[in-house]
């Protein structure tokens, strides 16, 4: 996986300058791993036969797990890589949810309905 690029260089302690290319690269990484997490979560959820609320709860569990992984990858210094603090949880939440539901329905259909 591509390493997150250090985006912020602070010439003084007051304001940090974020590098465009690095920010874009980091967002690409977030998007990529969010899609993978949603897909894997959906497949797991479908195979396990989770229905209804449990299914959605599982999605948010995977979101939280993914946030933990991202924070770890960023060395727990999120501000060095991203301008917005809550991105680790909220990045592309709905997009991921859609992908999760797709894989969930698909695998649930394959395993349990047929």
């Amino acid at each position: 996986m591509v390493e997150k690029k250090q985006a912020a260089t602070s010439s003084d302690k007051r304001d940090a300058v974020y590098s465009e290319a690095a920010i874009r690269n980091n967002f690409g990484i977030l998007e990529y791993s969010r899609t993978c997490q949603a897909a894997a979560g959906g497949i797991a959820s479908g195979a396990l036969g989770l229905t209804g609320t449990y299914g959605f709860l599982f999605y948010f569990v995977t979101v939280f797990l993914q946030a933990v992984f991202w924070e770890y990858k960023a060395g727990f210094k999120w501000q060095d890589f991203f301008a917005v603090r809550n991105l680790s949880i909220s990045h592309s939440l709905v997009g991921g949810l859609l992908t999760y539901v797709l894989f969930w329905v698909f695998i649930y259909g394959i395993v349990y309905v047929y």
Partner: protein
Amino acid sequence: MSERTPNISPIMTDLLLDPAIRTWVFIPIVVVTFFAGIVRHYVHLLLQTKKKGELVKLQDTHYLAKARLLRMNGGVLPRADFEMRKHFLTNEKEGYLQQKMQAPSNQANMMTDPSMMTEMLKGNMLNMIPMVVIGGWINWTFSGFVTTKVPFPLTLRFKPMLQRGVNLSSLNAAWVSSASWYFLNVFSLRSIYALVLGDDNAAGTTMDEQLAGVNPAVQQDPKQVFKAEWEALQISFHKFKL
């Protein structure tokens, strides 16, 4: 395609669907949607008109980049050099950024700009038409039976929408028809396109995203960008790192 009515069996499924549906409907819809998106992306690439860049615009971009780099890496220049470059860009009378800021705004009406209109129209058409065509075909071919069961409970209000061809009043709303499965695919495969085709793929954008992205960005862009860059340079001060 046989469907047995539910009885008092303890297994999870209440309807038993013919495995032929799985092979010939369920999976083909996913495959067709996915490849239609990929084809759409490549057609978009093929039909793109080559944009002839104007020299002035290119020059502007380069100067902007130079200003940005100056801000970021000014610490390695000696103070005099830094001030000289800053002066060139931001001076009241002859600074490059100042001149560009005062330049009359000729971005009067971007909507009537012909080249951009055709670009937008092409993009819209390219996205809408296949979706409508494939949706119609699926609705026509695979009608009259349920395709799959969604794992979450849905209220009865969704039934006429999701179970287009099936007229069983007692059927659980979780059983959906192929058309709704197709739409779920269309909306959810967008993030997968980003994975497969790289970041800026033509298969992923919808009409309103295109509209919103093109319009405000271009209209205010040049003057605002210069102004922002000018302000940023004004407030940056030189700290010698070497």
